[in-house]
């Protein structure tokens, strides 16, 4: 008897396994569906973590080298201007910048905005001009300060803009706190158009002087300082030095922020994954049960195959391929569904868990970014346990005695 090559044999066996799966469609459909749902859940979590980390990395590249905060009684308080010359003297420091920022809670919308003070003239003239959709600007070529009140202008994130539109304040916004005598009106002169919206979405950039009014910040105090260090190798060192000279100052480097973000994202995703483990475990028990409890029909079929000369390892191969086809197809379907859910539907339900506290983000785009690494991880979490659970039942089925069908068992 002439036998074909190893590849021909595997091809035949795969072909047979596929048909065998199709013949038992009704039995396998339940496993298929649950499997798809689980892979979908796992992949969604991994995709959103990956994208968020990616997005965070991109946006955080613009973060300052070192941020300096003043801590009093364990709380962050305003930094006094007297620190500036001292820090500037440290070798390796190129420049120290002061920052004015804070939050503004708008009770009527239950939204929290991030307020940031800067000299908007720089934005209008500099290279950043193109990241803003300028509004209410009659002729940008004139390069004229539009408002009659230059200190009370602001540029807002797209998310803030959409919100303010609902209350007809998209042209000018009134800041008001009950302790103030009267509200402070601001002209909105533009919105941000960034490729990644995560961080700028709830942002209001105010002219510094106006921001001081809104945040009630005295003239010689700042929210925090930003230190520029041209040599990245020195950042860590200089941060330590600042803290050593002024123990009341806290220094945060860019790398620390990135690590913290990534850790938080990974922790959240692992936390959700761990809670999924129970479901995965239950699923594996179901598989074990299904795989061990062969129907009389299947038992007979394996008996026939053994009786007409199929080897035990051939039957094992069939079982292995059945498992691989089933888990492979389910994984693929689950991954594709997750891709659609995250990148097309923007992960409703899941993004709240990951982005966090505020409902301010009416929209945020996630950049499709699927590293093949993630596919390997998903396969490890789905296919490997599936095959592991089926090893023993498959063997049990495959060792059916060839004479079993002759003894009418």
């Amino acid at each position, binding site marked *: 008897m002439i036998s074909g090559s190893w590849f021909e044999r595997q091809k035949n066996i795969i072909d047979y396994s596929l048909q065998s799966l199709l013949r038992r469609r009704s039995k396998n459909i339940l496993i298929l569906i649950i499997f798809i749902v689980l892979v979908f859940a796992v992949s969604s979590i991994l995709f959103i973590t990956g994208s968020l980390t990616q997005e965070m990395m991109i946006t955080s590249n613009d973060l300052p080298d070192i941020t300096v905060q003043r801590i009093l009684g364990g709380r962050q308080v305003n930094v006094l201007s007297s620190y500036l010359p001292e820090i500037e003297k440290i070798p390796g420091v190129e420049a120290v910048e002061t920052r004015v920022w804070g939050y503004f809670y708008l009770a009527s919308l239950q939204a929290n905005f991030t307020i940031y003070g800067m000299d908007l003239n720089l934005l209008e003239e500099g290279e950043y001009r193109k990241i803003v959709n300028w509004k209410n600007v009659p002729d940008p070529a004139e390069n004229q300060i539009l408002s009659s009140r230059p200190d009370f202008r602001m540029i807002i994130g797209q998310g803030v803009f959409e919100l303010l539109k609902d209350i007809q304040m998209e042209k000018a916004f009134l800041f008001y706190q009950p302790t103030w005598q009267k509200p402070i009106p601001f002209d909105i002169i533009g919105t941000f158009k960034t490729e990644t919206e995560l961080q700028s979405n709830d942002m209001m950039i105010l002219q510094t002087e106006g921001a001081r009014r809104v945040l009630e910040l005295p003239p010689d105090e700042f929210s925090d300082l930003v230190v520029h260090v041209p040599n990245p190798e020195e950042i*860590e060192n200089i941060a330590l030095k600042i803290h050593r000279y002024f123990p009341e100052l806290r220094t945060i480097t860019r790398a620390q922020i990135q*690590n913290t973000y990534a*850790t938080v994202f990974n922790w959240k995703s*692992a936390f959700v994954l761990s809670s999924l483990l129970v479901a995965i475990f239950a699923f594996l028990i179901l598989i074990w049960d299904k795989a061990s409890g062969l129907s009389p029909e299947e038992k007979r079929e394996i008996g026939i195959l053994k009786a007409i000369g199929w080897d035990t*390892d051939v039957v094992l191969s069939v079982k292995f391929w059945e498992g691989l086809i089933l888990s492979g197809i389910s994984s693929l379907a689950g991954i594709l569904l997750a891709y659609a859910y995250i990148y097309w539907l923007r992960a409703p339900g899941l993004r709240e868990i990951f982005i966090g506290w505020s409902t301010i983000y009416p929209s945020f785009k996630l950049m499709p970014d699927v590293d093949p690494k993630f596919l390997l*991880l998903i396969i*490890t979490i789905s296919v490997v*346990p599936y095959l592991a659970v089926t090893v023993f039942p498959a063997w049990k089925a*495959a060792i059916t005695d060839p004479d079993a069908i002759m003894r009418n068992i």
Partner: protein
Amino acid sequence: MMLDPWILGLIIGHSALLLIFSLGLINAWQIFSGWDYNSTAEKQFLLEKKTYLVSTVMNFALFTQILMLFLFGMAADELANVLPGAMCAVGTLSSTSYGFALLDLKIVSFFAYFIWLVVNYLDNQIETYPLVRKKYLALMLLYPFAVVETVLLFAFAFDLDPSVITSCCGSVYNEGAEGLGASLAGASAGFILPLFFSIVILLLLNRFVFNRRDAGKKWLGNLLEFPLWIAFFITAIVVIISFISTYVYEMLSHKCPFCFMGAEYHYYGVPLYLCLFVATATGMTGGLLETIKRPETLAEKARLLQKKMNTVSLWGMLAFVVIGFLPFATYYIKTGRLI
């Protein structure tokens, strides 16, 4: 302890591996202690059936181990994002004392599983299963390593601490620093390249001169392949760190054997390592098969397989050299100088 999807994936994979290996161990013990070829008792029939279970277990173990090897490398790379100071996989691995030990153990396990499966394949072709006891004894000896691997993985996971600043390839493979990594990288190209190529040439000589059909000490030549391939693997790794990597990154200070497996280097490292592992696995197994002398029928099959393995390993080695020195060649042609 760090809760992280990659750690979770590794733990799931390793647990599956250990669980299935435990199933194999129990059955291997039963076969080892109860095997009696001449018995016609139903017990012997059952043991014979159990050999299929153990084979399946080992196939699963090898498959999972390969997957875990890749996953471990990628996890280490990915975790570098959350470990301060770690820029790539090296930083992650060296941030605990278990990282590199685990990696080394995984590589050894991979080769051991491969050899076991090859011997098993051969033995299963002979009607009397002549190596049955030795095979299952070897399998039982492999089990503790799988346990240690899992323990190391947990130790590694528990030891990872995002609040401790770790060092990275810049300092691990920094020639001025101390430690094994530094001396690996410090091995100057002028020293390691001649060593590497003399091993390559020795392997070729061994294959084509001492191992010709009419050569007298053919068995010795074949046996020599085993240590030679191990030496090849180790020197190849050193060459990758100290020489190949500098040309891939085109930077003298960046010496990392992991970073180039990622997308930003077009997965350059994947075919490189694939060739290295395939060549070494087949090469050393080919040498080891020389020790199979009896029975004659088995030795005959072993010789046949040995020939195939020798061919595969040779091509694998050539592919490795070509892929490995491609960045160097392109850099040299482009710029006309060395780094």
